[in-house]
């Protein structure tokens, strides 16, 4: 045996340098949906808390939306495309999964030959991808990374089925992250409950998604509080330190249930972007955070607690400082 493997020096920590979002142009209200299916604004708002959502048009492809959100995150980060050497695109709604869209998104943003791939962890995708990217910077596999969550769930939803059509929507959110001496992203706490693999699925031979609403609701409201507590503990913070709580926007009632159980202080701002955006799966966490930053409810330097959870079933949470 000759030679030995050496490792590169990584960074002390990673932090988010910029966030960006893309919301499709078309706004779809509950009243519009009620014209074509047996539902009502009151029914939708009381069940899931959604008032309106965005549906992508033909000229708003997954790649288009990912590039738009990624470009805004890059601009906000102050980096140039040439500084980025890792691109991770989280999505669960590619209708043609070969090739993954990570390389094309990078190419269209002018990022030269980065490590690039797609990651499918359902609605937990953004938080999984952020964990992978932050760890890549910690270990020296990457210097700066672009993480995107992007979905066109309307492509995989039966838009005549009121149990899913009123919930799922489209959009993209992105973060650019880089090295930091003072860690700005806490450890990811992730896991899965594969025994419930068919709770949210596109069944073999089908092109649209089904969801066992009661099972997912029960899982989300009873099993995931512990993950949020672990994510805070792993970062060395507690509920009183959290400025912004931005869980995946699956259902407003789940957001409220988690918020009640965690016992935040009064100053903690809770993301309720689902009211305007519907459930956008892997895009929901960065969409919710950018909305709070744009409205001024959240500020640069705030400590955010996020959690993604969904098809798999998968879950991932972490604490980070907003750029």
């Amino acid at each position: 045996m000759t030679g030995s493997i050496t490792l590169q020096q990584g960074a002390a920590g990673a932090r988010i340098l910029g966030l960006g979002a893309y919301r499709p142009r078309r706004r779809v209200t509950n009243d519009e949906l009620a014209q074509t299916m047996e539902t009502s604004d009151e029914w939708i708002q009381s069940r899931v808390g959604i008032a309106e959502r965005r549906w992508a048009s033909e000229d708003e492809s997954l790649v288009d939306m990912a590039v738009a959100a990624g470009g805004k995150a890059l601009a906000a980060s102050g980096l140039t495309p040439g500084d980025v050497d890792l691109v991770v695109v989280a999505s669960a709604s590619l209708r043609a999964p070969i090739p993954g869209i990570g390389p094309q998104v990078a190419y269209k943003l002018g990022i030269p030959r980065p490590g690039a791939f797609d990651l499918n962890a359902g609605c937990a995708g953004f938080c999984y991808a952020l964990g992978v990217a932050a760890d890549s910077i910690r270990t020296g596999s990457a210097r700066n990374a672009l993480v995107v969550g992007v979905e066109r769930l309307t492509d995989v939803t039966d838009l005549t089925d009121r149990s899913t059509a009123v919930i799922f929507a489209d959009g993209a959110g992105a973060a650019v992250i880089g090295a930091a001496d003072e860690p700005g992203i806490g450890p990811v706490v992730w896991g899965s409950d594969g025994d419930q693999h068919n709770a949210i699925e596109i069944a073999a031979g089908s092109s649209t998604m089904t969801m066992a609403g009661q099972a997912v609701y029960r899982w989300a409201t009873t099993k995931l509080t512990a993950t949020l507590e672990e994510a805070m503990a792993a970062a060395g913070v507690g509920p009183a330190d959290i400025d912004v709580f931005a869980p995946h926007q699956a259902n407003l009632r789940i957001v409220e249930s988690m918020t009640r159980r965690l016992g935040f202080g009064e100053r903690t701002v809770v993301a309720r972007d689902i009211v305007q955006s519907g459930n956008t799966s892997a895009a929901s966490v960065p969409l919710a955070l950018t909305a709070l930053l744009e409205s001024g409810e959240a500020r640069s330097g705030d400590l955010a607690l996020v959690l993604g959870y969904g098809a798999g079933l998968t879950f991932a949470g972490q604490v980070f400082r907003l750029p």
Partner: protein
Amino acid sequence: MSEDIQSGLAEILEEVAGVAPADATPEKSFTEDLDVDSLSMVEIATAVEDKFGVAIPDDELANIKTVGDAISYIQKNRG
């Protein structure tokens, strides 16, 4: 025994779904009479599990239509 269960269940119904305790009588249907939706049924089930130490899986939950159904389920399955 069944009075204890009924009053305990009534407390849960009031807390989770805002049902007046006097309305939580055995013949009442959760969805038809008490306006409890499917997600509130899940919240009621998890609260019943905590309070009475019974497990109510989703497929069993689907068969619980009335307050009386819930009371007899708890009676039958309580350890």
